[in-house]
């Protein structure tokens, strides 16, 4: 076993939230996931700085995928579990200890593909989770296969003749399932993204933030974007920020508009509170 290097100098303003001894991380050059993580950690660091968040309660959970791998680098209680199962893991962790603030940070395939059922059920229950879906429209880690959010017609390694499927538009889907907060951000607007993270981190109940992102290596190349920047600029061009839009009017169209903004913002009691309240009442003989 190699000597274990526990600390390296912290230089970057976010280094306090990173396992810096593992950097550089294994994501490809220019991958949008890193930009989203950057905004997320900034949101946490600001909230901690403002005394509004206790970082020791933050639980950072990923399933399996490039996005999920961010859990290997975050300096919180972190979990890198199995493909699609970040939500139930985080659910159990929170229900067993309602002080925990679970953040599920994972990919479109992980959360809306194999894990889609956990996603809609967590939303339905208004389970106290912040779920961040990094939507790079592909299965990045496994090499750029079709994902449930890949636009129709796109060429991927498993759709060499063009994707015949229609993608999910996650905003109306999750909004229809339930939850207190549903928003979509883009890696091309990091400050906006951070503000959504900050807001969502402080709410109870189910919160979903979809982040429109890129996979320059395994998807962008297939689409003909020669560099990470090309893909980045494509995204920058297609996202449109709108406010006051109803979730079912939100667009997810590669050729015209991918709407970003906040679409649901409620404050109904979270499932975890309701359940613990019930247990309290039962113990007190009130139920």
């Amino acid at each position, binding site marked *: *076993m190699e000597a274990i290097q526990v600390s390296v100098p912290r230089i970057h303003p976010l280094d306090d939230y990173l396992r810096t001894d593992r950097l550089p991380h294994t994501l490809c050059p220019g991958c949008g996931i890193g930009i989203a993580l950057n905004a997320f950690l900034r949101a946490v660091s600001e909230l901690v700085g403002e005394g509004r968040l206790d970082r*020791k309660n933050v639980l950072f959970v990923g399933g399996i995928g490039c996005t999920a791998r961010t859990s290997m680098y975050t300096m919180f209680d972190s979990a890198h579990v199995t493909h699609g*199962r970040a*939500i*139930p*893991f985080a659910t159990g962790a929170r229900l067993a200890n309602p002080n925990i603030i679970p953040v599920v940070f994972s990919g479109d395939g992980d959360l809306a593909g194999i894990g889609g*059922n956990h996603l809609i059920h967590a939303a339905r229950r208004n389970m106290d989770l912040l779920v961040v879906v990094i939507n790079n429209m592909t299965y990045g880690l496994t090499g750029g296969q079709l994902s449930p959010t890949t636009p129709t017609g796109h060429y991927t390694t498993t759709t060499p003749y063009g994707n015949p499927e229609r993608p999910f538009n996650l905003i109306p889907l999750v909004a229809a399932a339930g939850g207190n907060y549903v928003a979509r951000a883009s890696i091309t607007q990091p400050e906006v993204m951070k503000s959504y993270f900050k807001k969502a981190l402080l709410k109870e109940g189910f919160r979903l933030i979809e982040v429109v992102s890129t996979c320059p290596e395994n998807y962008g190349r297939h689409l003909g974007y020669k560099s990470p920047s090309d893909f980045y600029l494509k995204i920058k061009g297609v996202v449109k920020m709108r406010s006051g839009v109803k979730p079912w009017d939100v667009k997810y169209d590669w050729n015209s508009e991918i709407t970003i903004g906040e679409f649901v913002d409620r404050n109904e009691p979270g499932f975890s509170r309701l359940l613990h309240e019930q247990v309290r009442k039962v113990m007190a003989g009130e139920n």
Partner: protein
Amino acid sequence: MRGVSVGYLTGNQAVAEGAMAAGLKFYAGYPITPASDLFEYLSEKLPKRGGIVYQGEDEIASIVAAIGASWSGAKAMTATSGPGFSLMAESIGLAAMTETPVVVAVNMRTGPSTGIATTPGQGDVMQSRWLSHGHYPVVVYAPTGVQDSFDLTIKAFNVAEALRVPAIILSDAAIAHGREKVMMRSDVPVVSRKKPTPGSKYLPYEAGDDLVPPMAAFGEGFNVLVESLQHDERGYYVPTSHAFEKLVTRLNRKVDDNRKMIVESRVYGEENADVLLVAFGSYARVARGAARRAREEGFRVRVFVPISIWPLDEEGLRREASRAGSVVVMENNLGQLYREVQRVVRDRDVGFLPLLKVELPTPTEALRSLRGMVRA
């Protein structure tokens, strides 16, 4: 007796009571016959003790929630039967790899596939050990009745917590729904996971000589890393042969080196028997009945009952086998425990008596078959 309460419970209720006695704090379940009533019983009882009962959207959600809850410091459990257990295959591996204490009660019903939901089966013996991919550790106990259901549930929790492994209670519909008098001691020895010293430098997968790393809970400030990839002591992904061999060997040695703590078996009947009849679970009760009937006929049957199925009490089994006229394994499948007995008892033939039934065979029936084959 002081500190003992007497119950007249079903196996399912006894497992639930055992779990609560062992300190259960989180139960996640998904309905399935014949495990639903265990879930229902806990739905009523556990909240009274401040525990959480949660219904997942499927069995995967349920066991993974239990694993998550365990990392939040709660003693956690789920229960299911064949189809649901099959769905948990991947998650059992997750628990083993992340060294998460979790207890899974599996009530066998008639299989394969949907089979018959309401009748007892014994077709999941091999599955209980090998359902997940990779070479991972697991401990499996098979209660033979309601008292065992209570006692072995406590034991399963204790082993799960002591070794940070998933522990399985492999029961069946006959025991789960049968009712018996059960003595429940209130002062049962309860083991809880070892914790790191507060403020210490902590590596979540660094074990001492006992091979079991201490386990910090979420929210305690240790920045733990739960990792399903091959990892080193820190939980860092290290894809080398060295790290692989080290981790997988340690994981499995936790069980192998602690056989003493885990293993349990029982023998019944005469010493110098004509036949050593090996049977587990509800069929152990049939076998004991058969031995009783055999005695009336002057036929000497000794019954060997493995209580821990994985690992088996190999020594005990070999010792007993060496003393009997012949050795026969009787189970409700086409040869599962039988394969293990064959492997362990190498120096002599082992007979196999498959009694494929959807209800318990009577001792007389079993004895008739046994005599038929021992004669032949």
